[in-house]
């Protein structure tokens, strides 16, 4: 089998030395991690490699020699390099050689032991694959299928070459800790050898985050203890708490904040990404909420809003009354069931009368209520939107009642029609006089608009809650961090020389990023997608603007 040598692009111009890395026998591939320069003491090299092996659980060893010299290697150098093979025994022994300033390389891999099968060559063909060490170290491979019984340390033949390479580089961070300014016994060349990469801001943030997290975590536990106390479990507070979307959203945000400020470190990259996504989501929410707050409280907009509210409610009620009067007569010349008309019409008119009295009762307090509601925007835009949704639900409750009656009747009619359609298509032709009075209630644009607006507000809140902003930002700015796979490019090739390939990271498409890293939102999302909303409107199924008992708890 062709031997694949994965060589880091940062070591291409390094001086001659030993190749340090890992050999994966099942895929016949050698992953070179660093180059160790002359002069060195073999004992110290073996000690260092044993330390690295223990710290990282990766089978790091000396794989061969690397020669980067001005012209063809001299005889003495050649013999010296061969003698190194005796000092560091490894099967197979790689010899990579490159002329200074030349493009083509020469690679040989020799096996000292005699081949067991007759006809197999003592020397293997070598294929060189260059990879960017920094990108491979920082990236996370998202393979399409994950085997269920795969363990963290084992790499069986079924995991594949790429997973082995990414795994090896990611776990050998210990090897990359020393740079050339250190005064250690050995000199290594790798991606950090020009100086270990670090950021002052990141270090300061890390130091400061400890006590801050502790403080905030204790505050949040206090808040959750208060909210879990027995007073809120009694009816009617528990009923309100479960129905209003504001309480739901506040609970959700509290959960998110507890996750962010928890003092436990994230165990694996998935948890870390989730934390980062939650932080980004909360920050965006608060930023949008503060923008809304500053817009609302400037130039006395709240006063204008409050002044406009009562006349609008009056106007709506008047229009509804006109509509009902029209329907109780002969709408569009249709002849209807007079008794049913009168009953339903008078019932709805009484509803409207009650509601208008309630609105007039509330009118002096509206401005204060709106001002305090506006303050809630500093908790986040989603909280403000949930409050708005609740207020709309409460203000238009009478319209919702009409919608419920109308939708139920319409639903009954649709069921009746569908059962009769079968009969119509069968043997008898039956002319039925349909009752059109209940159908026309659905054509009321106002009701549809209100219900649709509530549904849309819920979907918007869900979108802000569940969008993984950190992952999307990472995919936009640092696409190599989220890898769907790799791509290869064949470099300049000369006959007789080994094949050279460049391995680059293939970033994950945006749809898969959203799908993999979507934050769990509150339980109404799977039930209320956009398509489901339209379908429910059309078929007459009831749309509940609040959470039902049967919804999934998250």
């Amino acid at each position, binding site marked *: 089998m062709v031997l694949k040598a994965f060589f880091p692009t940062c070591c291409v111009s390094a001086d001659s030395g030993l190749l340090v890395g890992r050999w994966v026998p099942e*895929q016949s591939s050698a992953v070179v991690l660093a180059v160790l320069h002359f002069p060195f003491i073999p004992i110290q090299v073996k000690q260092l490699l044993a330390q690295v092996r223990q710290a990282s659980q990766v089978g790091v060893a000396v794989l061969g020699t690397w020669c980067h010299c001005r012209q063809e290697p001299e005889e003495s150098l050649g013999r010296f390099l061969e003698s190194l093979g005796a000092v560091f025994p490894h099967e197979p022994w790689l010899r990579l050689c490159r002329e200074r300033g030349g493009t083509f390389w020469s690679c040989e891999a020799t096996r000292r032991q005699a081949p*067991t099968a007759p006809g197999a060559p003592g020397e293997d063909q070598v*294929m060189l694959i260059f990879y960017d060490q920094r990108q491979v170290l920082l990236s996370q491979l998202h393979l399409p299928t994950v085997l269920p019984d795969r363990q963290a340390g084992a790499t069986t*033949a079924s995991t594949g070459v790429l997973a082995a390479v990414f795994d090896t580089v990611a776990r050998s961070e210990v090897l990359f800790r020393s740079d050339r300014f250190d005064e250690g016994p050995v000199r290594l060349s790798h991606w950090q050898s020009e100086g270990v990469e670090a950021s002052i801001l990141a270090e300061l943030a890390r130091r400061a985050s400890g006590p801050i997290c502790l403080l905030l975590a204790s505050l949040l536990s206090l808040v959750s203890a208060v909210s879990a106390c027995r007073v809120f479990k009694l009816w009617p507070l528990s009923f309100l708490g479960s129905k209003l979307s504001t309480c739901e959203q506040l609970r959700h945000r509290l959960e998110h904040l507890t996750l962010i400020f928890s003092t436990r470190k994230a165990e694996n990259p998935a948890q870390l990404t989730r934390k980062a996504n939650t932080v980004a989501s909360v920050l965006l929410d608060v930023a949008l909420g503060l923008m809304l707050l500053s817009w609302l409280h400037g130039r006395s907009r709240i006063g204008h809003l409050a002044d406009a509210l009562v006349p609008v409610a009056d106007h709506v009620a008047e229009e509804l009354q006109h509509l009902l009067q029209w329907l109780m007569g002969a709408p569009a010349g249709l002849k209807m069931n007079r008794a049913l008309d009168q009953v339903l019409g008078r019932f709805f008119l009484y509803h409207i009368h009650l509601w208008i009295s309630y609105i007039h009762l509330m009118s002096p307090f509206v401005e204060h209520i709106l001002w305090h509601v506006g303050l809630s925007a500093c908790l986040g835009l989603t909280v403000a939107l949930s409050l708005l949704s609740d207020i709309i639900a409460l203000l238009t409750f009478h319209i919702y009642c009409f919608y419920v009656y109308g939708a139920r009747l319409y639903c009954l009619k649709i069921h009746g029609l569908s059962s009769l359609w079968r009969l119509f298509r069968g043997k008898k032709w039956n002319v039925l006089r349909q009752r059109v009075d209940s159908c026309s209630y659905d054509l009321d644009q106002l009701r549809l608009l209100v219900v649709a607006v509530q549904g849309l507000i819920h979907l918007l809140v869900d979108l802000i809650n569940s969008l993984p902003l950190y992952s999307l930002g990472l995919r936009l700015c640092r696409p190599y961090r989220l890898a769907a796979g*790799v*791509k*290869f490019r064949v470099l300049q*090739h000369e006959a007789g020389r080994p*094949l050279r390939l460049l391995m680059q990271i*293939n970033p994950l498409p945006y749809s898969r990023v959203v799908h993999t890293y979507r934050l769990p939102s509150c339980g109404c999302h799977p039930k209320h997608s956009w398509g489901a909303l339209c379908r429910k409107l059309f078929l007459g199924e009831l749309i509940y603007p609040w959470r039902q008992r049967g919804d999934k708890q998250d």
Partner: protein
Amino acid sequence: MEDERSFSDICGGRLALQRRYYSPSCREFCLSCPRLSLRSLTAVTCTVWLAAYGLFTLCENSMILSAAIFITLLGLLGYLHFVKIDQETLLIIDSLGIQMTSSYASGKESTTFIEMGKVKDIVINEAIYMQKVIYYLCILLKDPVEPHGISQVVPVFQSAKPRLDCLIEVYRSCQEILAHQKATSTSP
């Protein structure tokens, strides 16, 4: 080693197949699709603008004309970036895997790489496409659970759609490499 031949696709358009033999274990096949023809572009633009002008004479709103220009530009950009594929490449590297690249007219490239351990075989399959029966080359992937099963069929050269003669050329070369790979993988 590089050579180029011209074939035709299932609709009769001209395709150019470029074969590069880098080494006995690495081959690349590059299929170039016919370019966007000026005639069809002009026809579509004229239709859209005539329709917009007709609406304008009905409604007397000049926004329709600017909207039509906008839509034409956006539509053309979107077509070049997301739909029109210029070149499709198949790169086979023995013992590493198979890579398929599609380059779009706007320069975007989308690459898929399948490891050799997952590839079961490359075959030419028949399919019913609209009113025709066509041949297409596809890669069969192994099923991790069942040793003799196939988990996925990945078609190659989906937008170029070459005819059988072109497919046979590519198929023969790929089978040489796969046979070589199977022979060397069984020996230690």
